C-alpha cells in the first residue's frame, strides 16, 4: 500500500478483543452516569477516547490535546473579534497549526524524497535526509474535523463553544476518531451540549449497524485482502484475468474495510445517543462516476466541496476554472490519502473520469435511488453500474499499488491477451460471500445501511439472520487485517 510508512503499537481495533471489553464498560458507565449529567458524560467520553487513542500510542495524545486547545481558544477569540484582518490571522493560525502537524507527520518525507528526485533528475545532488517519522493514527481525520470548527466559526455559521470538555469530546470522540466519518462541527458539536436519551430503537439500530460493519470488515474485506495481497504482490506470475480478479478483490476489500469501519463508528455513536453523518451510500451501485463520488466517503467529499471546491469558485466560473478546480479537488483528495504519487494519480484519474460529466452538465443526472421500487436494475442501469465499477476498479489499482511503476505494470498485464485466459486463482467460497454481501446491500439499498429496514422480517427470522452473520464472521475470520484507512 504505497510507501506510506506506519508503525502501530498494541492496537485496539473495533474487531479486537480489547475493544469488545472496552466498549461495554464505557457504555455501562456512560448510561449509569445518567442523561441528566451531560458534563460528566462528556468527561467520560473524553477519558474513554484518550484511553482508546492512547492504546495505540499515548505520545500522540499530546497532538490531539494541543490541537483541541488551539482551536477552542481560536474559536473564542474569533467570536470576540470583528476586525477582519485579525480574524483572518486567527483562522490562518488554526490552519497552520493543524495542517502543519499533518504536513510534518504525513508529508515531510514525501516532499523531501520528491525534491531530492527532482534535483537528481536535473543532475544535481540535494543532501537532505528524510526522518524516521511515525504517522499518528487518524491524524488526517481529526485534523479536518477540528479545522471545520474554526472555519465555520470564522464564517459565522457556528457559535463557538465555551464548554472545553464538550469541545475536547467533539475532537476526540472515540467511535470516529481514527478513521471518520469526518464530522462537521455544525452537526456533532451541538450534540455534546444537549441531553442524550437512551432510545431503544436507536440502540438496536446501532447494534445492527455494528454487526453489519463487522461482517463487512471481517468476512468481506479481510478475506478479499488475502487474495488481493497475493495477486498484487506477485502480479507478474498471473495472467490478465486473474489480475483483474485481484483488482476486484481489492475493490471489495477497500469498500468492506472502510464502509465497515464507518458502519461500526456510526453504530457505536448511536449506542451513546449520537447521530453521525452517513459516510457511504452503496457506491458500487452508482451509474456514473459523479454518482460514485456522491456515495463514496461522503464526509470527506463534502468537506472538500465546502472548504476547498466552493471557496475556489466551484463550477461557477469558466471552462478553465471548472477543469482546474476539479483537478485540484481530486488531486488533493488523493494526496490526503497518502504521501505517494500513486494516490495523486488515483485522484487525477478520477478527475479525468469526472470531467466529461461536469463539462456536459451530466454530473447530476443520477441522483435518485437506482431501480427504485424494483427488485432488479434495467439492462441499461446494470451496464452503467458495471462500467462505473470497472472504471473505479482500474483507478483502485493505483491506490493499491506500491508504486506508479507497479500500477502501470499491473494494468499492462491485465490488458494483455491473457485477459481472456482461465482464472489461475478462483476462490469460489469468497466469491459466494461477496455475492451474498452484494445481494444484501442491493435489497437494503433504500436504507442508510443494508440492514436498516430489516424490521419487516418476523423477529425469529431476523435474529436467525443476525446469528448467520455472526457464524459467518467466526467461520471466515482470516488473518486480522488492520483497517486500511487508519494509515490515512
Amino acid at each position: 500500500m504505497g510507501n506510506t510508512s506506519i508503525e502501530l503499537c498494541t492496537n485496539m481495533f473495533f474487531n479486537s478483543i480489547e475493544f469488545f471489553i472496552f466498549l461495554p464498560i464505557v457504555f455501562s458507565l456512560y448510561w449509569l452516569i445518567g442523561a441528566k449529567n451531560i458534563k460528566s458524560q462528556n468527561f467520560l467520553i473524553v477519558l474513554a477516547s484518550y484511553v482508546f487513542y492512547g492504546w495505540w500510542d499515548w505520545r500522540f495524545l499530546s497532538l490531539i490535546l494541543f490541537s483541541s486547545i488551539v482551536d477552542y481558544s481560536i474559536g473564542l477569540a474569533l467570536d470576540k473579534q470583528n476586525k477582519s484582518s485579525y480574524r483572518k490571522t486567527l483562522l490562518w493560525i488554526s490552519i497552520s497549526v493543524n495542517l502543519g502537524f499533518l504536513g510534518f507527520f504525513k508529508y515531510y518525507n514525501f516532499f523531501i524524497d520528491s525534491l531530492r528526485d527532482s534535483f537528481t533528475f536535473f543532475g544535481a545532488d540535494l543532501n537532505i535526509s528524510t526522518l524516521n517519522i511515525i504517522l499518528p493514527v487518524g491524524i488526517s481525520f481529526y485534523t479536518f474535523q477540528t479545522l471545520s470548527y474554526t472555519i465555520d466559526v470564522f464564517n459565522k455559521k457556528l457559535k463557538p463553544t465555551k464548554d472545553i470538555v464538550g469541545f475536547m469530546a467533539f475532537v476526540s470522540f472515540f467511535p470516529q476518531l481514527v478513521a471518520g466519518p469526518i464530522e462537521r462541527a455544525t452537526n456533532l458539536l451541538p450534540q455534546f451540549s444537549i441531553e442524550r436519551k437512551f432510545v431503544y430503537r436507536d440502540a438496536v439500530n446501532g447494534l445492527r449497524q455494528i454487526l453489519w460493519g463487522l461482517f463487512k470488515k471481517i468476512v468481506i474485506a479481510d478475506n478479499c485482502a488475502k487474495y488481493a495481497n497475493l495477486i498484487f504482490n506477485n502480479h507478474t506470475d498471473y495472467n490478465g484475468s486473474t489480475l483483474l480478479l485481484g483488482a476486484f478483490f481489492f475493490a471489495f476489500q477497500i469498500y468492506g474495510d472502510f464502509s465497515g469501519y464507518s458502519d461500526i463508528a456510526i453504530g457505536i455513536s448511536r449506542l451513546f445517543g449520537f447521530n453521525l453523518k452517513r459516510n457511504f451510500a452503496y457506491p458500487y451501485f452508482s451509474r456514473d462516476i459523479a454518482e460514485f463520488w456522491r456515495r463514496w466517503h461522503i464526509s470527506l467529499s463534502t468537506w472538500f466541496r465546502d472548504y476547498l471546491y466552493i471557496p475556489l469558485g466551484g463550477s461557477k466560473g469558466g471552462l478553465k476554472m471548472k477543469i482546474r478546480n476539479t483537478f485540484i479537488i481530486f488531486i488533493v483528495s488523493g494526496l490526503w490519502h497518502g504521501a505517494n504519487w500513486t494516490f495523486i494519480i488515483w485522484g487525477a484519474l478520477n478527475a479525468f473520469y469526472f470531467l466529461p460529466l461536469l463539462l456536459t452538465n451530466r454530473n447530476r443526472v443520477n441522483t435518485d435511488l437506482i431501480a427504485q421500487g424494483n427488485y432488479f436494475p434495467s439492462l441499461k442501469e446494470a451496464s452503467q453500474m458495471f462500467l462505473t465499477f470497472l472504471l473505479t476498479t482500474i483507478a483502485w489499482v493505483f491506490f493499491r499499488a506500491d508504486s506508479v511503476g507497479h500500477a502501470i505494470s499491473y494494468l499492462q498485464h491485465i490488458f494483455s491477451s491473457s485477459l481472456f485466459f482461465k482464472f489461475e486463482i478462483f476462490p469460489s467460497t469468497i466469491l459466494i460471500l461477496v455475492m451474498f454481501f452484494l445481494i444484501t446491500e442491493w435489497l437494503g439499498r433504500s436504507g442508510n445501511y443494508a440492514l436498516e429496514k430489516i424490521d419487516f422480517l418476523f423477529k425469529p427470522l431476523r435474529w436467525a439472520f443476525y446469528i448467520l452473520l455472526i457464524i459467518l464472521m467466526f467461520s471466515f475470520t482470516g488473518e486480522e487485517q488492520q483497517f486500511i484507512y487508519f494509515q490515512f
Partner: protein
Amino acid sequence: MKKFIINIIIFFLIALVFGEVVVRMTHATSDIPRRTIDKFGIQKYYPNQTGYWQGGSHQWMINKLGWPGQLPNSYDNLIAIVGDSFIENFMNPSACHQSFILKKEMPAYNFLEAARSGVTLIESLEISKHIDTLNPKTILIHTGSSDIYESISEIKYQTDVTQLSTDDKVLQRGKLKSPGLKKVLYSWKLLYYFYNRFPLNLTINSTKSTENRTIVRSKFEIHETRVRILLDYIKDHYNLDNKIFVFKPSSEKDLVDMFKSLGLNTIILDSSEESSWTFDYDSHWTCYGHERVANQIKLALIRDFPNLIN
C-alpha cells in the same frame, strides 16, 4: 434500557446454543481426550475414548491402555514408540501414525505407541519402564532439546509434567492441571472454540533483559551441568540397554553429543530435504513427515541396531 439489556441477554443465550450446535456439527474445534493419572503416577488418557480432529476429517482413538492409536495384534516382536504430541499425532489419521507406517515397512514386528503431548524426557523414561513389562525388543524414545530441558525442574518448574530436581535428585510427578476447568472447557465446545480462536495473551513484555548485559551463551552451555546430572540419574535409574533415543531434527548438537558420549543409543532425524515435514500452521509433522521419519528409523534400526531387533 431494561428491554434492551433483556433482549441482548436472550439473543446472547440463543446465539450460544446455536453456536454450540454449529461448532459440534461442523467439528469446528478438535475433541480433546480426558486425562487421568494411573496407579504408577503416569499421566495418560482415560481408555477407550474417541473423538474428531478439527474439521472432522478423521477420528482419533484412545486404546484400552490409555494411549492414542491402535494396539498391535500381538506383543511378540514388539517395538514400542514413546514420545510427545509428535507421536500422539492427533492431527493426522491413523494411517499416518508411526506404528502404522513402521508396520508396513517392517511387517515382522509389532508396534505399540505410548505418547502424550507435553511429556518430558524423564516422563518418557517412566512410561518406558512400564512398557518394559511387555518385554519389547526395543523402545524408541522420541525426544528433543525442549523435552530434555523441561525434565529439569530448576530450569523451568512445571507442575503438570514429571520433572527431576537436579539439586535434590528427586523425581517430581506431574499433576493434572485444572482438571475441572478443562472438563468444562472441552465439553463446552463453543467456549473451547473461542479459547482457541482468540487466545488470551497475558504475557507481560519486560523491556529489561539480562541476556543483553551478559555474554550470550547457548542454552546448553548455561544448563550443561544440570543436563549431565539428569543423564547420570537416567543411567542409574532406568534400563537403557533396549532404549533408543530418537532426536527430532531441530535438537541441539551438543545435547545429542552428550548422549552419544555416554554410550546411549541414538538416532538423529534429518529433515534437511526439499519438502517440508511440517504443516504450514503447525510445527507438527504431516503424513509425509511421518513417512520420512519412519523411513529413517527403519534404515537406522537395520543399519545400526541389528542386535536389538533380531
